[in-house]
């Protein structure tokens, strides 16, 4: 009985480990860094997007004192930004990760809808 139990526990451990590994997403390192929107937003300057490797992210408009915080992960080569309220923003890296196409619809679309799309370029610097 104990042997049987151990067998099941081992199988379960493998399954859960496998699922947990799959669920953690991919490495954030290639996409971490500073990004800046290519066009001004809402007449308040450019958006600065800072993706930290620890999964935190900040979003700041140049002429807006507020800094918005997100969490983010990488999955299937795409970036998922999570808002506090439960919305998801999907960002697709292009040009080898030098650009991010951010879909502001809150859904995944095969190509970013023009009216709801913001393109960011990677810039040097820490913050």
């Amino acid at each position, binding site marked *: 009985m104990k042997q049987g139990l151990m067998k099941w526990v081992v199988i379960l451990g493998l399954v859960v480990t496998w699922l947990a590994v799959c669920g953690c997403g991919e490495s954030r390192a290639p996409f971490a860094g500073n990004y800046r929107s290519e066009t001004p*937003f*809402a007449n308040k300057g450019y958006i600065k997007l800072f993706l930290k490797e620890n999964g935190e992210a900040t979003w700041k408009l140049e002429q*807006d004192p507020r800094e918005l915080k997100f969490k983010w992960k990488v999955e299937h080569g795409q970036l998922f930004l999570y808002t506090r*309220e*439960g919305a998801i923003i999907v960002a697709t890296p292009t040009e080898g990760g030098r650009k991010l196409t951010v879909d502001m619809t*809150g*859904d995944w679309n095969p190509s970013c809808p023009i009216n709801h799309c913001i393109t960011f370029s990677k810039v040097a610097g820490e913050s």
Partner: protein
Amino acid sequence: MDAKKTPEPGESSGLKLGHLGQELDVPKGMRVVSQGETPEFFYVIQSGRVRVFRETEDRIRTNLTELGPGSYFGEVALVTGQPRSASVEAIEDAHLVRVSKEEFDRLLDHNPQLARHIIQQLANWLVAGDGRLESETVRQVKMRQISWFDYALTLGLSLILAVVFNLYNDNQIALIHGWGGKDDIQKITLTQGLEYLHQKNAVFVDARKINFFEMRHIKGAIDLPVVFFDLQYPMFQFMLTQMGASKEKPLIVYGGNYSRRFDVDLARLLKEKGHEQVMVFDGDSQGWERSFPVMEKKGKAPGAMPLGLAGLIEWLPVGIFLLLLIPPVRRSPYLSIWCRLILGVIFIEFALSKIMRPAVFAMNVIDYNLTPAWGVNLWSLFLPWAELLGGLFLILGIRTRAAATIIGGMNIIFIIGLVNAIFLGLPINCGCVGEVGEPVNWLKVLKNTGMLFMAIQIFLYDRLFVLDRGGFVWRARAI
């Protein structure tokens, strides 16, 4: 049972076989007698050991006994003339004496002591068989019994884990959204709203997600999804400026459904931003659809994002569903094991995709528009844990019938939600295994139907590899 042990080992000589029979060497693993075959011989074991067992059509094997030197087997079938009732195989190299039916009959005719002994053994076997039958019946009844305790255990544990985990989760959500919030938003009737519209004296703001806004909205309204408020508010301000609207301009916020009043949430946020006159419609949050001129177009389903392995695993229930159409396979307890394993992995995967970010899942639940507002967050916290425990219980063989019932129940709820969303043309994500890019369609219904049938199969036929079932079940009826 077609096998006996003589009172004392080595007493085979007491059978007075004399010159009867033929000596036989049987290597380990060889089957001497097969269940169902026509009997021709009676066997006496001189050395070595054999195992007596029965096997059902679906290859479930029951070991009956093991016999050693001095024992004999094969006499029952010879006496009754019926096919062999069990099989016998050598579990170590054995030396047997094989006696033909004619010789066996002669032996009985001239050896009343042996005949009496065989009758005695047969009688003992019948008594022992009755006892075994009774204990097996009791075991089967216990196995098939489920009690409310099983459900209370699974569901109660899920609820407790959900609440405790939420306390320590970075992405914590309130158990009940908006509980205790002040009702400080001005409410107007639809008629008053129409007056504002005709006088062009207010800005109408749609609080729902973009997909819903694009599907249907009040003519001239601005979209400001409450879930993107922080991000989109600067753009909203910019649009108001372009329209020449100051912060004193009345804002009429609408949108929301049975599961969440996005309009009230957004109105509060706008008031916090300094907008002085923010109003929402009183009563039915969706009444504007009937009373106001609206812009409409067909709902656009989200794109289908490749789900990788999770997407492939989701197809397995459809394959199993096809297997269930074959009657002999349908009843197989081995199929139950596969169903448990597949369903378990799928539901654990479902759970892990939701547990960490309940707010995301709550938005999916709201989109379906079937859960009352007070229950959305509770359901969003509870469901992934019920999925996880249900999946684990199925894999481990704990309370599998209860776990299958709960998972089957979930599938029924999912199917209702999916079919409802398809008929209403809701532009929403399934929220099944992925967070986005998982459109609601008939394939999802088919997959969930496959899983429902798997759960039913487990409920009806699962009986192998279960862990301590019946060990600590509170029983509603005595056996």
